[in-house]
């Protein structure tokens, strides 16, 4: 699809970036199907919105919060954005669960085979081995482990969403409908819910915008970002390098060719990068803001 490498992409082409540069007419490995890509984009938008609007309240004592609150059209408007994004987030969650159920019906004979199979998102023995192997590698005591389709840190991020949905979602609903919930629970539950909601949100935001960003985008081999979650495609070389176990399995089973698709044209890649940069910048800004608020303006 790509006709000619542009001067700036020439660097990447001949340089170290193996992540995203498409050769002319190169066929790439399809890692994420369309639904999951869409869900992740919606997730980014909704998560960013929730973080930005929510933090304005959490750090209300900073000038930044006032500024952002006004940017969103006031606290009421920011509240609507927050709740709308929350609904979107719940929608993503439900859509994913439905997708998992349908996937099981289509591709797996039983839940057991889905949940305990090699492509399962559940933690397994291999993950523990990888974790130990990874630490050994970090400390120079062994080789880099051969990661499979889903590494343990990817699984951790995946389940963090489940945890967050349960904790932040449930407390958020309490705070959204306090009159309804206090028909059953005492009033001080709302105080507890506020603390849990806001601190768990702080954890989620802090974790995603630092650890997840590093693990996925900022580590040197992916720097400055890995756009596979938006394109769904990754060069086969990358797959070979990053997920050797999966690559070997695919080659062994002769399934690799089946999963190769054409790369996106550069205009699409540029748009995706722009989006990625925006998300990264917002994320980092929030981290900086949180650190500033906690260290210098804490009340």
């Amino acid at each position, binding site marked *: 699809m790509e006709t000619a490498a542009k001067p700036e992409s020439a660097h990447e082409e001949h340089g170290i970036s193996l992540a995203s540069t498409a050769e002319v007419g190169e066929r790439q490995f399809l890692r994420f199907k369309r639904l999951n890509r869409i869900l992740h984009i919606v997730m980014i938008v909704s998560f960013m919105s929730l973080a930005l609007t929510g933090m304005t309240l959490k750090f209300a004592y900073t000038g930044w919060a006032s500024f952002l609150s006004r940017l969103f059209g006031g606290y009421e408007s920011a509240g609507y954005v927050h709740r709308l994004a929350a609904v979107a987030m719940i929608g993503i969650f439900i859509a994913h669960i439905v997708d998992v159920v349908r996937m099981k019906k289509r591709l797996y004979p039983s839940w057991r085979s889905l949940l305990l199979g090699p492509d399962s998102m559940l933690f397994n023995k291999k993950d523990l081995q990888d974790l130990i192997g990874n630490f050994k590698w970090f400390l120079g005591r062994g080789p880099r482990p051969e990661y499979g389709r889903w590494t343990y840190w990817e699984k951790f991020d995946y389940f963090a969403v489940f945890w967050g949905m349960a904790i932040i979602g449930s407390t958020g609903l309490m705070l959204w409908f306090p*009159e*309804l919930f206090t028909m059953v629970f005492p009033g001080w539950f709302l105080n507890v819910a506020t603390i849990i909601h806001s601190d768990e949100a702080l954890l989620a935001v802090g974790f995603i915008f*630092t650890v997840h960003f590093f693990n996925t985008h900022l580590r040197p081999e992916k720097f400055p970002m890995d756009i596979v979650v938006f394109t769904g495609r990754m060069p086969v070389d990358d797959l070979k390098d990053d997920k050797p176990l999966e690559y070997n399995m695919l080659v062994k089973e002769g399934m690799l060719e089946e999963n190769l698709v054409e790369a996106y044209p550069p205009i699409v890649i540029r748009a995706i990068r722009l989006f990625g940069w925006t998300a990264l910048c917002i994320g980092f800004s929030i981290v900086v803001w949180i650190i500033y608020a906690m260290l210098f303006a804490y009340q």
Partner: protein
Amino acid sequence: MKPFARLKNKGLPKCRRLIVRLPCLVVLAGLWLAPAFGQENTECLGCHSDKSLEGTRKGKKFSVFVDEKKFGQSMHASLTCVSCHADLAGKELPHAEDLQKVECGTCHSAEQELHTKSLHGKAIARGDALAPHCNDCHGEHNILSSKDQRSPISPLQIPFLCGKCHQEGSLVTAQRTIHQDHILENFSESIHGQGLLQKGLIVAPNCATCHTPHSILPHTDPASSIAKGNIARTCTKCHAQIEIVHRKVIRGELWEKQAHTLPACVDCHQPHKIRKVFYSQGMADKDCLRCHENPQLKSSKDGRSLTIRSEELGYSRHSKISCSQCHSEVSVSHLRPCETITKKVDCSSCHAELAQQYQVSTHGKMAAKNDPNAPTCKECHGTHLVLGKLSPNSATFATNIPILCAKCHREGQKAAARYTGSQHEIIEHYTESIHGKGLMKSGLTVTATCTSCHSAHSVLPKTDSLSSVNPKNVPQTCGRCHHGIQEQFEMSIHAVMVGKTDKPLPVCNDCHTAHTIRRADETGFKLQIMSQCGRCHEAIAKTYFDTYHGKVSQLGYTKTAKCYDCHGAHDILPISDSRSHLSRERVVGTCQKCHPGANRRFAGYLTHATHHDPEKYPFLFWTFWGMTSLLVGTFILGGVHTLLWLPRALQMQRQRRKESGQQNQGDKGENGNSGKT
């Protein structure tokens, strides 16, 4: 007052003591004088000179002793006893004890008749026990001439005589309807009273001069000497040619002729009240204007114009006051009556009460020290063109007051320069305040101006306990307009009477400020008020900002519960008080103002919760620390993982670049090493 001190102590006991101490002397003197009287009197005195002789009337014993000496000196010394005690004529002695009352009218028929028709006589006829009989004023056996200074009816004694009944606190003033009050006090301070009692001028009028001795009638009775139709005649008994000097009022005509249209003397010169002579007889404005209408008239001292524009005087509130009433000390007899004037105009002659207020005020105290910056009456009220505060052209008209006060109190002016307090740019702040805008922009003359709060004449610094802006008095001062609020405030915990505490309690201006008072429904005010509460309620205000309400307020929005939305603004009461907005009985209703579906459990939301207090809010404390531990734990794990990974990943990257570089060198030569991140 002094002359009546004697009356108050009741003079009688002193006389009695005298009598008790000198019994022998009196008896001896009586015996010696005895032959001077007629036969019958000697007979009577045979018994009645006995000091211990007592009679009985209506079951009560009383002395029937007759002091022969005093009787001998009395006006009636030449009369026999039976001339008055007529029912005893020819009776055998000793006579029966129950005698008839002496009938003075037998001889004094004219006086008797007047008395019978008078208020006093009618009261006797009604059987009023307090009504005075002849002997109550004239005495009994010791009747003296009115010319005798010892007589109770001598001019100097009459005020005390009448005062026995007509002084404040007597039975008559307490139990009977007398339309004038403080008669004796007022009289004693009046020009008449001073003349009589202080200067001893027995020609000065006493009570009887105006009221007549016997024909005492109410002023509503046309026959009364003090009736409107007769008052001029009564006064002109002394003030014979008064018409001549009353040119302005009566145009030189006689009162007696037109008593029904012209004001009576007492309409201007109140009957018993204090009066001062602040005008000179015979001076009229036209005498002054003869010179002062000349537009070229200048002071020989400082060259200022002394021209009086008569139309100015006409507009003035003092248009009916003559020049000499203010410019006193003129001498009518002089060619230039004003040349005897030594003092400046003293407004206190008429405006005594205001002048008194002024004297205790800061302005007045400065003036007393001859401070050149001190404003006197004329600085605010002007001189000849004195306009009332209701005239829009007046400097003291509501909308002009801030301009008037600003002359000295604007920043940089003489009053502002010496001021050391905390209020600055007063005029500018006031102009921007709700009061200032109401007055100057909306033109509402009922809006508070400077004088509404600081008072017009009793201006004092707030540190003075008499000041209208002293914290103690502020609620009352504001309450003059905001009465409903004052009522609420007075029953709130912030009121001195309710919140019994030694801590300083807030008053209106502590929350609303003094000069920058803003509309209470303005965003700025609403947000500011929270920090105002926090000045005293520091800890609790802080915890408010830990809650959703507080955080939204902190972002600068007012549509969320602030202190006063729950606690009330002026009617704040402790939650233990059932009238409090937050009492058990009312708290749900208070929540429902914003949360219509609120229920009792909803009201259990901790609006001042903080997770920093493990004693009070253990759940919140432990939840917070639980969450914080989770957060810190996760970040430590994630952080360690990342930090260990980074150098290794960089190393791997360098290695790969090297490999890739070697490969590229092999493949493409010169382009190989240009790759970088």
